[in-house]
């Protein structure tokens, strides 16, 4: 525990020039928790979460830039406005559900980016709105951490009390929930309110970190990244989501800071076959009879690609594919992680973390604690 605390608190000191990225990781964790309330707890979905965050960001920028309000007032207002806009959208979820509601959230996100965030008087239009960072970059990281702590506390309390229990019940079985006296409609809106409030806080922090907010920053791609990091982190696992979100936010930094990583990515035409050879060898060594054959073929093909022998039809084609850069890493790593989670690790990172938590509480080590057997139907019912 101490080591983890040391790592989190010390990060901006030994990675000083990355303080801005580190703040981003903390903010992403807040956004991941916000999305988790909708997907994980209430069993609905938001594919327009970049708009939730964007509303918070522009509200904070408006409060700071045009109303000249102090930083904390801006965050507070952003949280409230974020909650309100989410409830308005959530009102639709009461009438429409499933795939069509997902489609509506998606459209809402695009709509917000194209119109709402371009209202000149409120957001500065395409030029962007300005929100000064209230402290030094390193100190700002700790402000973000403080807000993450608040969000974590609120989330923990929510799930320990009747609101959270009502959400879990209505996600799994709205009919049963209603026989418990739970007003399913009201609690669906509660989920949106909480999620929107968290997202508003995240957006406001993001605005002040970047000091300038402009509409192009809130594209659909961002919403997709938010969903990816939440699912990969592990729905309903606070720790998993914090780790998952931070991981996605820091991918660029990790790629650039770990020696050799970036070069390996850029030369993926070499890296990939080398990994394939290694994988093939492992399969031949440990796998069953069928895997041995597959491993042998894999390693053979990979060696052929690596060898100076020229394969005529491959020649020149590999070079046409642009090298992977650190900037684009999340676009490639994200889907790979998602695939792994959906097939091999349904509980996401949270599933890996739970045995550790169990062990830290003084119990004997047990890998099977918190194992999730499959992605639950209700998680994709949306």
């Amino acid at each position: 525990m101490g080591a983890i605390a040391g790592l989190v608190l010390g990060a901006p000191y030994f990675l000083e020039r990355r303080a801005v990225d580190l703040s981003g990781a903390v903010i992403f964790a807040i956004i991941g928790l916000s999305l988790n309330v909708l997907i994980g707890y209430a069993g609905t979905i938001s594919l327009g979460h970049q708009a939730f965050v964007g509303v918070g960001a522009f509200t904070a920028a408006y409060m700071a830039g045009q109303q000249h309000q102090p930083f904390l007032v801006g965050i507070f207002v952003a949280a409230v406005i974020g909650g309100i806009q989410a409830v308005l959208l959530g009102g639709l979820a009461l009438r429409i559900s499933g795939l069509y509601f997902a489609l509506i959230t998606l459209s809402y996100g695009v709509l917000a980016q194209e119109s709402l965030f371009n209202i000149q008087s409120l957001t500065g239009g395409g030029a962007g709105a300005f929100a000064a960072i209230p402290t030094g970059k390193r100190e700002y990281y700790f402000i973000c951490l403080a807000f993450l702590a608040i969000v974590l506390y609120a989330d923990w309390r929510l799930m320990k009390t009747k609101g959270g229990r009502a959400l879990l019940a209505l996600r799994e079985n709205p009919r049963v929930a209603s026989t418990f006296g739970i007003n399913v409609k009201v609690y669906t809106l509660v989920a949106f309110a909480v999620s929107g409030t968290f997202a508003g806080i995240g957006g406001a922090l993001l605005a002040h970190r970047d000091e300038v907010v402009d509409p192009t920053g809130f594209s659909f791609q961002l919403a997709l990244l938010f969903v990816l990091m939440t699912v990969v982190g592990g729905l309903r696992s606070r720790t998993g989501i914090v780790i998952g979100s931070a991981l996605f936010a820091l991918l660029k930094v990790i790629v650039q800071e770990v020696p050799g990583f970036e070069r390996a990515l850029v030369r993926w035409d070499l890296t990939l076959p080398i990994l394939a050879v290694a994988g093939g060898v492992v399969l031949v060594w440990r796998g069953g009879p069928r895997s041995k054959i597959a491993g042998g073929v894999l390693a053979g093909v990979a060696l052929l690609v690596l060898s100076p022998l020229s394969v005529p039809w491959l020649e020149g084609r590999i070079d046409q594919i642009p090298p992977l850069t650190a900037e684009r890493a999340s676009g490639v790593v994200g889907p790979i992680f998602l695939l792994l989670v959906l097939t091999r690790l349904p509980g996401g990172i949270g599933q890996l973390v739970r045995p550790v938590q169990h062990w830290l509480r003084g119990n004997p080590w047990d890998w099977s604690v918190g194992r999730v057997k499959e992605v639950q139907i209700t998680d994709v019912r949306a």
Partner: protein
Amino acid sequence: MSVLETQNLGIRFGGLVAANDVNLRAGEYEIVGIIGPNGAGKTTTFNMITGFYTPTTGRVLYRGRDVTDLKVHERAALGMGRTFQNVGLVKGSTVRENLLTAQHLLARYGVAGGIIGSPASTDDERTLRRRADALLEVLNLGHLANTRVAGLPYGDLKRVEIATVLATDPDLLLLDEPSSGMGPEEAHTLGDTLLDLRREFDLTIMMIEHHVPLVVRVCDYVYCLNFGELLAEGLPNEVRHHPEVVRAYLGEDVDAEHESV
């Protein structure tokens, strides 16, 4: 005044008449049984009583009040509790969490109060937890409190479901096949449990049940439904031997009926 009364209750789905002219009555502290072959409209009737279906005709009266237009959760707040044929529990949660969830209306703090951790919320939570554990003790389920519902055997699920619905603090309990999945002995014990619970919690119970010995033993009055209509009603032993009922529900062969009962 009766606790529950349905007047000419009927529902049609498109051209199909699922229930027609169903008149049921449950007096204070009575245990009323509903029997009938599969597809007779028993669960459909339950769904109209609890508010999942809106009846095409007729009314549902709860303690003399017309509740036909109330939502499911509003009827729950009046004191209607129900169980489901295929077990109405939150399967991803533990047994105790289910009982806590079911006490939703007994927690008087708001969601926001819970989030900031108001003193009222911590007080209430402590009370709810104590009450949940007490209920589990009453039903001899204390040892399962921290077990996830998903892994429990069917018989245990049915008993946990009864504990959970009791946690909602009902006046009227609507049980949909409480003994399904139980052997004869378990069903017998369930009969004792139901009689005990009625005394202890001042309950009125209406239950759909196939297990005839259980119905005969605990019910004060029995209705038999067939093809969505009332076929017979009366004291358990009268209904059981009613020729129409024997034909519709227990098969043509009366001798075989005696063996199976």
